[in-house]
């Protein structure tokens, strides 16, 4: 009894372990084989149920992944045969024909199918014909290990809304004929940019100081890093994929130091962080990833941002920060990939390198252009420079402006403290 009980436990554990580690990969292969995400998900769930029944008694198969793929593929054929719609019946026949041509093992013809199916899945999930929110949700659900409810919590929407978003996205893939393949070389750069944007958006969602250190948020950062690692593994030659992973690692390395104590701990500015709490292993890994990338003629946007994060990461103390180098990197970033936010950060770096007056001149010019009118960090940065220049009354006015725009509580508390420091009264509202 005792023996069989243990065998059963280890069987169930084996199923769970294989499933946790391999779900994304199995699902990706199944989608290629059955041609539909929903059908692949449903038949994988049935195959998993079968494994939970069979493995504990019969022992874990030699190749658990191949077993699950084969079982799920058979479930899919069964399901399609029972399908009532003429369309599904046709698909069943086509699929059976295709399945009969491939050997029963998971052996696949060399060339095209030797591509890791997860790479196909990434490009399908991040297809520009899907809305960005749908891209993010699909990527996290199929390639990430997240349940629909977890994704919903992370993006602060009701679970039903997230489920609906996934259903619609999958329907569009099916109905519009969004292909399941790696884009042609001529499309690849633009399509890879879209994939990187999705992963970075996921990371920033988790990283935003707005929700402090809540575990769900941390999980989202970790998930983004996991996806970043996967992309580097699948596309080792893509410099920007490595740079994005580096950027995320170097930012995430500061995680423990950037939030104050307590459940709703306030964000701590980088200059005030306890740098002994930075994750040295993550920093080493991040720096190694971008080693040499800046020697490229036109470094990508992630490479430049990662290099900036790298300069901070290498500074033992805030006063030792090499602001001249950071200004140089921002100058290049602003030249190659201009954006108002980059201009703002560039101005702040100049203020740190050469004094607040020149930084203020640039921020004023940016403010006058009106492009960042709703962005609270513009008046906040302006207020900070005015404070450093001792122009407290103007600083107070700018802090009040920032307060009127700042959405989250942690930012507001920080701005209120600064407002008091410069002798301003907190606005009633």
């Amino acid at each position: 009894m005792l023996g069989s009980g243990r065998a059963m436990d280890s069987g169930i554990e084996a199923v769970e372990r294989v499933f946790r580690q391999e779900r994304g990969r199995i699902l990706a292969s199944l989608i290629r084989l059955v041609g539909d995400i929903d059908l692949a998900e449903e038949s994988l769930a049935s195959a998993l149920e079968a494994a939970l029944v069979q493995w504990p008694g019969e022992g874990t198969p030699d190749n658990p992944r191949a077993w699950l793929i084969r079982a799920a593929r058979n479930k899919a054929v069964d399901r399609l045969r029972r399908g009532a719609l003429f369309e599904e019946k046709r698909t069943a026949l086509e699929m059976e024909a295709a399945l009969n041509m491939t050997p029963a093992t998971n052996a696949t013809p060399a060339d095209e199918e030797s591509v890791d199916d997860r790479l196909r899945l990434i490009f399908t999930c991040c297809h520009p014909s899907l809305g960005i929110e749908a891209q993010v949700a699909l990527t996290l659900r199929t390639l990430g290990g997240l349940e629909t409810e977890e994704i919903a919590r992370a993006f602060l929407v009701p679970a039903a809304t997230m489920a609906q978003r996934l259903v619609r996205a999958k329907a569009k893939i099916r109905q519009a004929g969004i292909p399941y393949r790696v884009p042609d070389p001529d499309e690849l750069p633009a399509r890879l940019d879209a994939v990187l944007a999705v992963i970075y958006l996921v990371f920033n969602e988790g990283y935003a100081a707005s929700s402090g250190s809540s575990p769900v948020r941390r999980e989202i950062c970790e998930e983004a890093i996991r996806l970043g690692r996967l992309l580097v593994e699948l596309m080792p030659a893509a410099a920007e994929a490595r740079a994005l992973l580096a950027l995320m690692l170097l930012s995430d390395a500061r995680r423990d130091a950037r939030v104050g104590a307590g459940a709703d701990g306030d964000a701590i500015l980088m200059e005030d962080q306890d740098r002994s709490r930075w994750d040295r292993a993550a920093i080493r890994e991040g720096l190694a990833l971008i080693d040499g990338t800046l020697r490229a003629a036109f470094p990508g946007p992630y490479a430049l941002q990662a290099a900036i994060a790298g300069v901070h990461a290498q500074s033992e103390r805030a006063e030792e920060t090499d602001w001249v180098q950071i200004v140089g990197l921002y100058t290049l970033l602003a030249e190659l990939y201009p954006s108002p936010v980059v201009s703002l950060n560039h101005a702040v770096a100049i203020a740190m390198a050469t004094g607040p007056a020149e930084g203020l001149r640039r921020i004023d010019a940016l403010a006058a252009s009106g492009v960042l009118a709703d962005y609270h960090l513009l008046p906040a940065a302006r207020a900070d420079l005015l404070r450093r220049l001792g122009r407290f009354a103007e600083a107070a006015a700018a802090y009040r402006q920032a307060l009127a725009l700042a959405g989250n509580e942690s930012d507001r508390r920080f701005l209120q403290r600064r407002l008091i420091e410069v002798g301003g009264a907190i606005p009633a509202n």
Partner: protein
Amino acid sequence: MQYMLLIYGNEQGMKTATPGDREAMFKAYGEFTASIVKSGNMKAGDALQPTATATTVRVRDGKTLTTDGPFAETKEQLGGYYLVEAKDLDEASKIAARIPGARVGSIEVRPVMPMPADYPRPKA
């Protein structure tokens, strides 16, 4: 002369229709299609998948911009169409990007709804 007859309708209404309503509509379309095939008026025609399946393709400064949804600007009006056979949405979008109008306006790429084999069609 040839004329294009464009069918506008409320998608939401179709979504909330009962199966009976939908069947009746499908039957009515089948009968109408059969009648204009018989009379020799029918050149071509298809039902389209809902707007949620649409992709908009624009070409600006030589770069193809592909976005989700049917976002023709209100200052743009329907000016023509092509019906193409393509292996998937990417191929269809690439063809769309080659249409001269994509450089100044936008091309909506919308999949055609598959119909049963016995649905009335004009003779090729």
